[in-house]
Each structure stands twice: as structure tokens, then as C-alpha cells.
């Protein structure tokens, strides 16, 4: 094979990635045009209506945007008290020890469990618990979905954070120890400031995961198409409304769902962009 042909093969493959990304953006935008034309771009985003009765069709994304933001931010809050200790366990306290590798492996396995299995577990194990605690009658809603989401994103948040914690130079820590600092003080004054932006970016990337999660949320959120008014309220996220209604949709409704897909794509792209940008800044 001539080298020229081979090199152009490599280039074409790399170009394909670019084309796929551009194609996703283009196709979603094209599919979303009818909805934006009917309701206006901002009109669509800021409308909380979702009515598919023929004749009175009206679609807006606000209910689902707020559902998505509420569940994913809550998930981040719920996961923090567990993922942060894990990353310190793996990256500092038991760094390089076997037990750290074991815990890291176990937590990583959480990332391997399929979303639908999380959904089933949430439905059959967590939901009854929430019902029996008297928190909500049906057990569906923002809280239930956020709790499951939190478990799902723990591995993403903790493994990357552990890497940044591990990267804090040993000399800095030893310097503090030699001045008589305890480990808690080293963590508070040396490790946390030194790895903060890295840890922060890890959580931004984890947020991106939570925003896009579909099946588990679809099974637990209760699927009502209105703006959620509290933790116990049911609702829908951008991903779950697509999963729920895409199959039977056509015309304006299909276009509206694609428009929600476009918004979801943009939001996750921006979130991931910011996360990656911070990592890049940090690591240089």
C-alpha cells in the first residue's frame, strides 16, 4: 500500500469524527426548525406548556429544562458527600495500597451497571422505601431520580478527582508535615487548594453525565409534563420526555422533541466543554 493512500485513509477517519459531530448538530437543527418556526426559539425555550391535543398543540421546553437542572444539580449534591471521601481514600489516605485499588475498582463497577438496571432497582427497591418513609405517595419524582442519578455519577466524579488529588506534589505535603501539620490540615491547606480546579472540573463532567441520563430517570421521575415545584414533585427531564414520547410522535410534536434533543445536545456540549477546558488549563 502506498504511503500516500494510507495517510489519506488516516486523515479521512479523523475527518469522519469532525463530520459526525457537525452532522449531529446539523441534523438536530434541521429537525428542530418547524418547532422553532412555530413557537419561536426563545418562545419554545421559555414556554412550560406541553399539550399534544390536536388543534390545541403547544410545545415548550421549560418544564423539561427545569426538571433536568433540578435532578442533575440535586444528584451532584447527593453524590458529593460520598464521592469526595472516596477520592481522598483512593488518592491520599490509601494511595498506592491494595485497598485503594479494591475500592476504586468497586466504585468503577458502578459506572458499568446499565442505566435500565439502575431504573429497575430504583423502581423496586428505592421507591418503596421512599413510600414507606411517607415522603411521597407514589414514590416517583425528583428526589427518587436524583438519588439514583447520584449513585450513577459517583464513579465519574470520584475517579477523576482522585487523579488530581494524587497529582499534588509530594514535596508540598512533606513541607507541611515537617512544620507539624496533621493530615487533616495538609488536606485542608495543601491538597484541596492545589487540586481544587481539577476536582471542580471532575464534578462538572459528572454533572454532564447526570444531565444526559435517560432510562433510570424515565422510570423514576413520574412523567408529568409540567414545571416541578418541589423535591417530591413529579416531572420529566429533557432526556426522559424524548424517551417517553419519541416513538409515537410525528409532525410538530416530533420536531419539538428533536428541538429538545438539540437543546440537550448543546447543554451537555457546553458543560463538557467547560469541564475539559478547566482540565486543560489545570494540567499545563
Amino acid at each position, binding site marked *: 500500500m502506498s504511503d500516500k493512500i494510507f495517510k489519506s485513509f488516516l486523515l479521512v*477517519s479523523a475527518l469522519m469524527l469532525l463530520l459526525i459531530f457537525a452532522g449531529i448538530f446539523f441534523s438536530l437543527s434541521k429537525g428542530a426548525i418547524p418547532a422553532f418556526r412555530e413557537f419561536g426559539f426563545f418562545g419554545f425555550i421559555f414556554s412550560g406548556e406541553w399539550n399534544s391535543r390536536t388543534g390545541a398543540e403547544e410545545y415548550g421546553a421549560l418544564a423539561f429544562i427545569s426538571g433536568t437542572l433540578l435532578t442533575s444539580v440535586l444528584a451532584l449534591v447527593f453524590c458529593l458527600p460520598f464521592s469526595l471521601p472516596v477520592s481522598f481514600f483512593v488518592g491520599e489516605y490509601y494511595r498506592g495500597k491494595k485497598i485503594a485499588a479494591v475500592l476504586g475498582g468497586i466504585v468503577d463497577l458502578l459506572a458499568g451497571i446499565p442505566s435500565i438496571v439502575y431504573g429497575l432497582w430504583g423502581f423496586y*427497591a428505592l421507591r418503596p422505601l421512599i413510600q414507606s418513609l411517607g415522603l411521597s405517595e407514589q414514590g416517583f419524582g425528583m428526589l427518587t431520580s436524583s438519588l439514583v442519578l447520584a449513585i450513577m455519577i459517583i464513579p465519574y466524579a470520584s475517579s477523576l478527582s482522585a487523579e488530581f488529588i494524587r497529582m499534588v506534589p509530594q514535596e508540598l505535603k512533606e513541607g507541611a508535615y515537617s512544620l507539624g501539620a496533621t493530615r487533616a490540615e495538609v488536606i485542608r491547606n495543601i491538597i484541596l487548594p492545589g487540586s481544587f480546579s481539577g476536582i471542580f472540573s471532575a464534578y462538572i463532567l459528572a454533572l454532564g453525565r447526570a444531565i444526559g441520563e435517560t432510562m433510570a430517570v424515565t422510570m423514576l421521575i413520574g412523567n408529568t409534563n409540567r414545571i416541578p415545584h418541589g423535591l417530591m414533585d413529579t416531572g420529566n427531564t429533557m432526556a426522559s420526555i424524548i424517551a417517553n414520547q419519541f416513538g409515537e410522535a410525528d409532525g410538530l410534536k416530533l420536531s419539538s422533541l428533536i428541538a429538545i434533543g438539540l437543546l440537550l445536545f448543546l447543554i451537555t456540549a457546553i458543560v463538557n466543554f467547560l469541564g475539559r477546558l478547566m482540565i486543560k488549563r489545570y494540567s499545563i
Partner: protein
Amino acid sequence: MSSLKYRLFKNKLLSLSVIVLSALTAVPLVLIIGKVFLQGWRQINWDFFTETTPSTLDALLAINNNQPIPGGIANGIVGTLMMVLIASAIAIPIGVMSGIYLSENRKTRFSSVVRFLTDLLQGTPSIILGIIAYLWVVIPLKSYSALAGSVALAIMMLPLIVRSTEETMNLLPVSLKEAGLALGSPYSSVVLKVLLPSAFGGVFTGILLSISRVIGETAPLMLTALGATAIQWDVSKPASAVSLLIWEFYNDPNLQSMIWSASLFLLLLVLSLNILAKQLAKKWRI
């Protein structure tokens, strides 16, 4: 400065809470796997792998006669394997080649753009790729199909393969390539016969991980493969998948007892692939 006793106490308290909270984090994994195992293992028998899903009426009859529900998930297993196979056939060549390109042209602006977009693609929700495969394949072919499902899975697999190939290739010593070129071999055979085989471990691990990432996917398949009650070998027809069957069982009150066995099968498949990939990564580290 607070007293030494107080500082030491705070130190102890922090270590203790880190250990306790870390241990607690392992609990959900145990609970989930435990639940799936306890509820699922009973229905797993030979028929489960060889028979297709029963109709809801058959299931109802069996329940009323107090018999085990007949049938299995063979249609799902065939569908999943077929779609993963086609997705791999699409994603592996493109992914590995792009990875090589990125590693061979590290510093160019084009490479950094592609690298960045690959990372963004990695973070794109799977349901979006379902919509895309619907727009790109289902609409032109005018039918839900295994092929459409494969396209969605392939786009999901790509970023992981690209980045793992690139990262492994970057680890190879430059002398390896120089030695090959100095012997007068053409660039293509240096890459294909020297560099790629040396990087095989990392590349293969990336491929396995990407397969384990998509094999349990449900959402994109709902929009593309749709599901089927019989084994379907025609890639242009709707196909089933294990994950899709779980979703169907979940929505059908008569088939509920099959949820857990199908989940157990899927969970074992994904986790063993996952663990295998990580063991190989350890063994084949460059």
C-alpha cells in the same frame, strides 16, 4: 492556634469519616447486584437462552395455572450480539485509524479540534445518538432496523476507541518507529506491522470497554431498533435486544417475573466484559 488535642481529634475525625463514607459508597453496588441476583437466578434455565419471548397471553395463562412463564430472551440475545457486532465493524476501523492519526499528528490545530470534538462526543447523551440514528437511518430506510441501532451504538463507541488508541500509541517509544523507518520499510507497514501490534493491548482494552459501554444501552435502541418478538437476522428489520426486552417486561404486568433474569444476564455480561478489559489493561500495560 487551637490545642494539639483538638487538632489531633479533628484529624482522627476526618480519617474516620473518609473511611466510613467510602465504605458506604460500596453499599449501593452490593444492594443492586444482590437484588438482581436474588430475584433473577431462579428463572435462568436452558430455555431462557434458546426460546424467544412469550406473548403476554401465554404468560398470563402460565401465571393463572401457576406454572413458570415459558420462553426466554433468545431474540434479545441475538439482537444485542448482532447490533454490537455491526457497531464494532463500523466503529473499530474508523476509531483506530483516527486514533493513529491523532497520535501521528499531535501538534496540529486540526488534531486538537478533532480531539476536543471527540471528547464532546463522549459526553453526548445516548438518547441524542438515538435521535440521530433515527434521522440518518430509520427515516431514509423507512423502517426501524437493527442497522439503525448499530449506527447509534457505533457513534457511542467511537470516542473511547479513538482516545484509547491515541493514548496507547503516544506511549510507544519513538525509537520503535525510527527503527522501522531506518530499515527502509514504508510508513504504512511501520504503523500497521510495528506500532499497532505493539499498542495492541491498549487498543483492545479500549475496544472491550467501549463494547461494555454500549451493550447495556436501552434509550438509543428504543428510537432505532424498536424491538421484535422473534429472532430477526435481517439487519434492515426491527430487532430486539436484551435491554429492550427488560424495558418491555417492565411495561407488561404479565411478564414482570422475567425482568430480573434478563437483568441478571445483562449485568453479568456487562460487568464481566468490564472486569476482563481492566485485567487485560493491567497485564498488557506498556
